């Protein structure tokens, strides 16, 4: 199914430096597997009574954050791409979180 054998024989000269560092299809499958395992754990968290309270909130945010970061860094290649793109995305992400946390705080909603 995968094309990893082709990937190995691929001559580096045919691609610019950006693409050599990208994961191989095998690694993509592995990443997806990790994501699936995290998701399974996430779904289980609410039903485990030992995690009630703040620990549950923390765990859900943490696991969701790991998945988010993995997709952005590896599938969207932000880890390998120009720092400029990272800056654009992080400004938007952090800015949005900061502003809307303040909004929710003024409503005393969180």
């Amino acid at each position, binding site marked *: 199914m*995968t*094309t990893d054998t*082709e*990937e190995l024989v*691929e001559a580096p000269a045919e*691609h610019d430096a950006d*693409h050599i560092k*990208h994961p191989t*299809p095998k690694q*993509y*499958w592995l*990443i*997806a597997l990790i*994501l*699936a395992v995290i*998701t399974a754990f*996430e*779904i289980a*968290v*609410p039903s485990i009574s030992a995690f009630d309270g703040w620990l549950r*909130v923390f765990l*859900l*945010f943490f*696991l*969701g954050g790991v*998945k*988010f970061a993995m*997709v*952005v860094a590896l*599938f*969207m290649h932000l880890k390998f*791409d*120009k720092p*400029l*793109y990272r800056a*654009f*995305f*992080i*400004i*938007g*992400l952090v*800015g*949005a*979180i900061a*502003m*809307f946390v303040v*909004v*929710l705080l003024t*409503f005393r*909603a*969180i």
Partner: protein
Amino acid sequence: MSDVAVTDLDHTEHADHHDVKPVRKTAMWVFLGSECVFFGAMISTFLLYRNTTNGGPGSEIFDIPFTSASSFVLLMSSLTMVLAHNAFEKSDMRQTRIWLSGTALLGATFLAGQIFEFTEFIDKGLTLPRSPFGSSFYMLTGFHGMHVALGVILLAAMAVLSLSGRLYDDRGLNVELVGLYWHFVDIVWIVIFTVVYLLQI
């Protein structure tokens, strides 16, 4: 003076104007940064109204096993998307087409699941005009669903275009850019699944 110019030439990232790809990717990442604020506004509206049910149904009607399954489908569509991009980079059009179609199919499955979920919730009395909770829930998930639908259309269009060999690197509609968009739609759902579903039960 001239040696300054030479060193600067090396430091100018995009001295070559014909290199179109980074130009498009730059704009795409700017747009995705902007989209963060879009979804940030909607998610915080939902958080503000998460308990404002106005006497109607609240988060207790969520069907977590079902939503988990459709979340998983969308998550896996990110894998097929990245494989499509990988195949496209290697000019393997057949593999590209297969993975593009697979991604579109998974996206359509997610959408079907969302439509089913919406009809279930409407049966249980949760509608847009029922409560601020309902309004913000449907707006957030509906807006995300519209993003998925647009992605499915783009993916299907690219799969069709690849049949006649008209899938190019240097057009607005290309595998890498649509891929970035698609992964973004996926990570937004990761956040929605955590914040809207898992945290509210």
